[in-house]
């Protein structure tokens, strides 16, 4: 804690809790929109920070840590929590206090983490979150008794409704004066306790680890399933040889060193639970949850429901987004016309109307669809269905040697590969994590959506098929399925060749079914739209302007707009690469789109927007869709785009790694250029071969 001149007290508070306990909802309720999302140095786990000022002039810097079940640091995600709490994380100060979020419906399991944090002797407050659900389920908690046993204040909260937030803020004002009293109240069998105390002393003296952290380190060393050699850079030789002797002694005395600590802790937890919680089970409610689980995880019905939900999601994205998209599109056209009347004709006019507004506008139009995608994925997560989807998909993933847990990062990658790749940090097995990272960008992300929807809306007829589905939605689903099945196939190839290994055990918590919080859902959609518009305003604007320049100069004084475009830098570069992409059925304009969208995929749409705006500068009322439909190849006299070309472009985009941000994240996650370079190469090759095959099959069918 730091006292400043103006008597403002600065306090660093970390929020810790199990996954699915409502930690982020509580963080949102405390901070509102005053949040900053960054990264921990050297790693790509999102670092979510927020600032709040309390009544007594205390400024609290709140840090939302990743969810964890324990301090054993089994996965990279969980290691972040341990590193922050032990002060081992660079550029992140050791917290002055902790808010421990507990799922009030599930105190017994959540107490495991609380007792571990208590032992680190931080001033802390426990937020008994989802207290209303606990009451509904017939769980009553004796809060004064719980406070007495743990020795810390406990506040009932319902973060989604803002209940208990004022009380929590009041406690934060004086949190540094609360010293927990329930430290190390759990008792070990006497011989184990003696070895434990001895090791703590040794760590203090030899390794200069201060109390209370020496207790944590001693327990970690005594229970770790890892080989002791892996710790040789972290502890002195004397300490490690002592630990080795401890293992032998405990084994000789008949103690399982790995279970004895967990069991002792759980014995104390059961005492607390018995003394403070009464559970009058409402059998009716439980049986409803059981019934839902038996249906949604059924070996046949589970898949039927899963594919129905996916179909519904894509159909809705298409039909609901139509009107807001038309509205944005006409708004952008009106803006272009308005600016066009203000600025006199000339290069500046063309730059702003055709380059900036044309390019950025083409991408911004897709905001409604991207928001709907995030809304659906958010709802799947918040209702508790996502874990069930991972559970049933474990059967499919198991066939390719992967874990059902890998399915969650893959499903998140439908929104964006970057959070998807970051979500692989929950996977404990390093080989499986790498395979998941390598295949995650094959999931069709939201940046591909503008490419898909532009081409589908332009070239796929809107006819009804399979009852409730129409052909455009069916094509869209097929593209997503193509990405998913290729990803699974590649996982199998990697598992059998480069990254051999056995299938890890599947253990995954199934969170209770819940009604999602409107505030959290809206906040997430807001964050995503800001992020999307920021990208449109920076990278896409920049690329659009550069592209406008390259598509305008060098100028041809006379000739048709098409001839002028062919004469420009873009035209020349496009013609240069045309022989490479011709076997895929692409002309030079599509080639330019592919090259410029190496940075990010949606640039393909803005590139076409800029190129066609320049080519059809005399008729600004025509939409990009109509321009694509009307475009004739001057050499062949045939349309540049046909349904087959559109399908080929989409297949190319399903399979190709056209995203610099993903490459950067993979480099950081795998600590080097080897894997991102490999990933880029294999995906580009896959895209080329896949598109070539699709084009030739298409030609064969149409002939």
């Amino acid at each position, binding site marked *: 804690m730091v006292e400043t001149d103006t008597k403002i007290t600065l306090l660093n508070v970390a929020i810790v809790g199990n996954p699915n306990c409502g930690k982020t909802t509580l963080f949102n309720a405390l901070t509102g929109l005053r949040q900053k999302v960054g990264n921990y140095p050297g790693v790509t786990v999102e670092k979510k920070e927020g600032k709040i000022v309390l009544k007594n002039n205390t400024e609290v810097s709140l840090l939302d840590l990743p969810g964890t*079940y*324990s301090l*054993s640091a*089994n996965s990279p995600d969980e290691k972040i929590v341990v590193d922050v709490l032990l002060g081992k994380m660079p550029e992140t100060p050791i917290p002055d206090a902790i808010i421990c979020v507990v799922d009030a*419906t*599930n*105190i*017994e*399991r959540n107490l*495991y983490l609380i007792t571990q944090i208590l032992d680190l002797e931080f001033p802390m407050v426990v937020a008994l979150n989802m207290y209303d659900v606990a009451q509904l389920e017939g769980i009553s908690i004796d809060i004064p008794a719980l406070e007495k046993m743990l020795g810390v204040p406990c506040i009932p909260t319902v973060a989604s409704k803002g209940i208990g937030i004022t009380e929590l803020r009041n406690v934060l004002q004086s949190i540094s004066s609360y010293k927990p009293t329930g430290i190390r109240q759990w008792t070990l069998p006497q011989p184990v306790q003696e070895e434990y105390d001895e090791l703590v002393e040794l760590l203090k003296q030899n390794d200069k680890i201060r109390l209370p952290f020496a207790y944590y380190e001693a327990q970690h060393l005594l*229970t770790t*399933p890892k080989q002791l050699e892996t710790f040789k850079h972290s502890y002195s030789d004397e300490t490690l040889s002592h630990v080795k002797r401890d293992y032998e002694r405990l084994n000789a005395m008949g103690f399982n060193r*790995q*279970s004895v600590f*967990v*069991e002792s802790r*759980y014995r104390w937890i059961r005492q607390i639970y018995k003394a403070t919680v009464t*559970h009058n089970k409402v059998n009716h409610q439980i049986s409803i949850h*059981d019934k839902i*689980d*038996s249906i949604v*995880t*059924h*070996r046949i019905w589970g898949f039927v429901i899963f594919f129905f939900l996916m179909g519904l999601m894509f159909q809705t994205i298409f039909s609901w987004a139509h009107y807001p998209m038309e509205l944005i599109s006409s708004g952008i056209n009106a803006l272009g016309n308005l600016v066009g009347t203000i600025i006199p004709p000339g290069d500046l006019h063309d730059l702003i109307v055709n380059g900036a507004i044309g390019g950025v506008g083409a991408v911004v139009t897709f905001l409604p669809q991207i928001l709907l995608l995030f809304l659906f994925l958010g709802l799947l997560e918040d209702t508790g269905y996502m*874990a*069930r989807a*991972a*559970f049933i998909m*474990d*059967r499919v993933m*198991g066939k390719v040697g992967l874990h*059902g847990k890998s399915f969650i990062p893959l499903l998140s990658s439908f929104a964006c590969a970057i959070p998807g790749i970051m979500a692989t940090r929950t996977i*404990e097995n390093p080989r499986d994590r790498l395979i998941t990272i390598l295949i995650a960008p094959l999931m069709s992300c939201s940046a591909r959506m503008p490419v898909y929807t532009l081409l589908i809306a332009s070239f796929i007829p809107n006819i009804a098929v399979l009852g409730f589905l129409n052909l455009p939605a069916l094509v869209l689903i097929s593209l997503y399925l193509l990405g998913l099945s290729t990803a699974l196939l590649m996982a199998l190839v990697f598992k059998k060749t480069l990254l051999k290994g056995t*299938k890890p*055990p*599947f*253990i*995954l*918590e*199934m*969170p*209770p079914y819940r009604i999602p919080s409107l505030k959290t859902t809206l906040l997430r959609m807001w964050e995503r739209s800001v992020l999307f518009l920021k990208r449109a305003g920076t990278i896409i604007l920049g690329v659009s302007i550069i592209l406008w320049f390259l598509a305008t100069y060098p100028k041809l004084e006379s000739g048709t707009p098409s001839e002028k475009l062919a004469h420009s830098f873009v035209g020349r570069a496009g013609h240069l690469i045309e022989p490479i992409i011709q076997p895929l059925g692409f002309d030079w304009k599509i080639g330019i789109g592919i090259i410029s969208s190496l940075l990010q995929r949606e640039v393909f749409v803005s590139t076409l927007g800029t190129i066609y705006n320049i080519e059809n500068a005399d008729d600004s009322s025509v939409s990009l869709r109509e321009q694509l439909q009307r475009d004739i190849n001057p050499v062949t006299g045939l349309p540049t785009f046909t349904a087959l070309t559109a399908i080929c472009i989409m297949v190319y985009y399903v399979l190709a790694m056209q995203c610099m941000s993903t490459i950067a994240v993979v480099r950081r996650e795998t600590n080097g250029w080897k894997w991102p370079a490999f990933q880029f190469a294999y995906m580009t090759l896959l895209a080329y071969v896949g598109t070539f095959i699709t084009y030739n099959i298409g030609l064969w069918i149409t002939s």
Partner: protein
Amino acid sequence: MYTLAEIPAGATVKISRLESHPETCLRLRELGFCENATIRCITNETSQMICEVCNTRVGLNFSTAKSIIVSPLQ
């Protein structure tokens, strides 16, 4: 003594011991699958099951469920 994989949906049993890789055992114990803990089986499909321990539902595949040795409640 049975393995958890053999327990039908709806039955409640007690964990006797865990017989798996140390890392898996540690994770299971931290999630509440401790020796002597009570466990309720919710679904038992051909290769997977969902059970409830410490009022939390956990999904397991059969190879993991087979490593959890259980006995009837007294």
